């Protein structure tokens, strides 16, 4: 009697799994609970085990394809006694159709590939809920130049909490009773960039770095590089060694940066500007200093030339200038990374050689990143490398 091998329920939210390895071949004798097929879900690699002992008759699935929970993956030829032992009715007629061989009626058979899922999670056919905006609502928002983020404060009264046009009009009517002033075009541009960026899952990692060597180096330099420039140069070198962390995820592809152009944030009136240093990995800190200082000045005057803005692959921001020691800056929408630097402060450091605490000047380095592209480990290694480079400023 043939007994089907069925894709098991691998986890609560798992709807499908991809076949990555066959551990046995057709014709092999197998025992009950023996590992037969390695499968990969969006969470882990697992194995499909044999429902009974017998001989593998065939596999009916392809490598690297995804199959739904409950799908028939193959057949095992087993004795009638064995079938009866695992609770299968021997007397039941064995049908020939591929999908009819499921013996447990509660098992849902979904044959073939599963289309409407994204990495194992079923995608609802009609999007609704708080994020659903009807055509009328969108048209009305367009008319007023509003974005979805502007509606965040409205509790929708429609199905599943969606914001209806009536909710929207009430909100607008309420706003009109309050004092309003016009946001500057700089404010609107920053808002637009941050809103677009925030559509991604962003995360931040951080670590402290001792600044004593850097500060000493800075003191002896002429002209003096800004502290952010050290961080910028360290980031550029680290990315020149491995540019993948600065790649962008578009669909199922990682788009790698073509050159290490790094921007840095400069506060300007009512907003932030990001001048860019091209090929920051190719020039030394010393050679970059003059250009950096020039760009800071131009940015403050809001006179940045076109070739000094846009197209950068990462940004450095020195929020330490505001006295902050920690922040989670948001990368620009077209970037995966933003390196942040906190204010330096005196802190005790345990000196193993001296067997005592010694005072050092320390600042936090933070790396905020698009978690779709980079994980904590990758971001951590990049940040470690940057910190390491900053400890030897003379080599930057």
């Amino acid at each position, binding site marked *: 009697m043939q007994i089907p091998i069925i894709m098991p329920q691998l986890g609560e939210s798992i709807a499908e799994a991809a076949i990555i390895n066959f551990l046995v071949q057709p014709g092999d004798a197998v025992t009950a609970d023996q590992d037969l097929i390695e499968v990969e879900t969006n969470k882990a690699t697992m194995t499909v085990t044999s429902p009974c002992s017998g001989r593998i008759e065939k596999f009916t699935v392809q490598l690297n394809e995804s199959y739904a929970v409950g799908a028939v993956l193959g057949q095992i030829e087993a004795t009638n006694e064995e079938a009866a032992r695992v609770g299968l009715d021997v007397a039941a007629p064995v049908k020939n159709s591929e999908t009819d061989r499921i013996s447990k009626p509660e098992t849902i058979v979904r044959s073939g590939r599963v289309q409407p899922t994204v990495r194992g999670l079923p995608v609802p056919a009609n999007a609704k809920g708080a994020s659903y905006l*009807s*055509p*009328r*609502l969108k*048209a009305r928002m367009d008319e007023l130049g509003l974005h979805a983020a502007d509606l965040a404060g409205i509790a929708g009264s*429609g*199905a599943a909490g*969606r914001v*209806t*046009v009536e909710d929207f009009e009430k909100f607008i009517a309420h706003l009109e009773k309050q004092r309003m002033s016009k946001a500057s075009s700089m404010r609107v541009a920053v808002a637009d960039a941050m809103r677009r960026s925030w559509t991604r899952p962003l995360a931040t990692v951080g670590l402290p770095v001792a600044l004593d060597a850097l500060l000493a180096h800075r003191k002896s330099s002429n002209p003096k590089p800004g502290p952010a420039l050290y961080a910028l140069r360290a980031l550029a070198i680290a990315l020149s060694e491995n540019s993948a962390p600065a790649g962008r995820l578009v669909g199922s592809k990682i788009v790698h940066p073509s050159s290490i152009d790094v921007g840095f944030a400069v506060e300007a009136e009512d907003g932030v500007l990001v001048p860019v240093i091209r090929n920051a990995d190719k020039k030394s800190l010393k050679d970059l200093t003059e250009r950096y200082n020039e760009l800071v000045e131009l940015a403050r005057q809001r006179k940045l030339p076109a070739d000094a803005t846009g197209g950068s692959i990462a940004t450095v921001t020195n929020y330490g200038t505001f006295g902050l020691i920690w922040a989670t800056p948001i990368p620009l929408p077209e970037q995966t990374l933003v390196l942040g630097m906190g204010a330096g402060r005196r802190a005790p450091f345990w000196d193993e050689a001296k067997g005592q605490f010694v005072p050092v000047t320390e600042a936090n380095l933070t790396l905020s990143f698009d978690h779709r592209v980079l994980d904590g480990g990758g971001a951590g290694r990049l940040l470690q490398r940057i910190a390491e480079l900053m400890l030897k400023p003379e080599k930057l």
Partner: protein
Amino acid sequence: MSITYLEAIREAQAQALREDPRVFIYGQDVGAFGGAFKATKNLAKEFPGRVLDSPISEDAMVGMAVGSAIEGMRPIIEMQFADFSVVGFNQIVNQAATLFWRTNVPCPVTVRLPFGGTEGGGPFHSQSIEAIYAHYPGLVVLTPATVEDAYSMLLEAVAIDDPVIFCEHKFLYYHLKAEKLPSEALPIGKARIAREGRDLTVVAYSAMVHEALEAATELSAEGWEIEVVDLRSVKPLDTDTVIASVARTGRLLCVGEAWPWGGVTAEVIARVASEGFGLLDVPPQRLNAKDTPVPYHPNLWMAHRPTARAVAAAARKILRR
């Protein structure tokens, strides 16, 4: 004095015969018998030689009418049931509809179709086939929902130079009454706001207007204000009035007694979606008869056609989104 929908149709024909010597009525048993539904009762006596019995051939009836129209007459053809008109389909859609476009000779033929469901009518005596005729360029398709419209629109149908498919609802024949005949009317091709509201637009025509109005009354008790648009004529279709209404309400439900597939409700939704997408606050919906032949059994028939209760249920779904 009160007058029914059926009597209004008879009166309109009498008036047309009276007003214009070119008008005559042709159909099975329309003469001495007065027609299958008595829509031509006594007209043969009143207008001798102008209300003529035809052979049992819809094909021949329409063919003869087209020929007489070419010769300058303005015939009114009575089909016993709309269902039977498809026997004369070729003459209607290939000859009458195209005549003017081929020859520049107008074809002022009016074909009266007693249509729509009645209890126990079954598959051959209940069909709503306005959409089939509306599909053909050259035809005007009218679907009056009131006694007043039945009268004034039939008079206008006879007066215009295009072939007209005049869909008169059998269920309304005896159920609908008015105090008197109208002295003025909206022009053909103009829809009517049958009830004003701000929450949902229900577009309907013919008998479904009354189901929609009943549903609107039911829903008003729940605090909803339903706007009911009576299309009056499905071709030409008054898209402007529909879109203006959707602009007020943001929600659209189209109700038709005909089947859903490629029908008038589909056409209305297509037009609103392409011309007024930004007006819609929820996906537009339609409610039609079930996509099966019309059942005989009264219980099945009530489940088959949209009723006021079904309209109200569909409306609630839209209103709660």
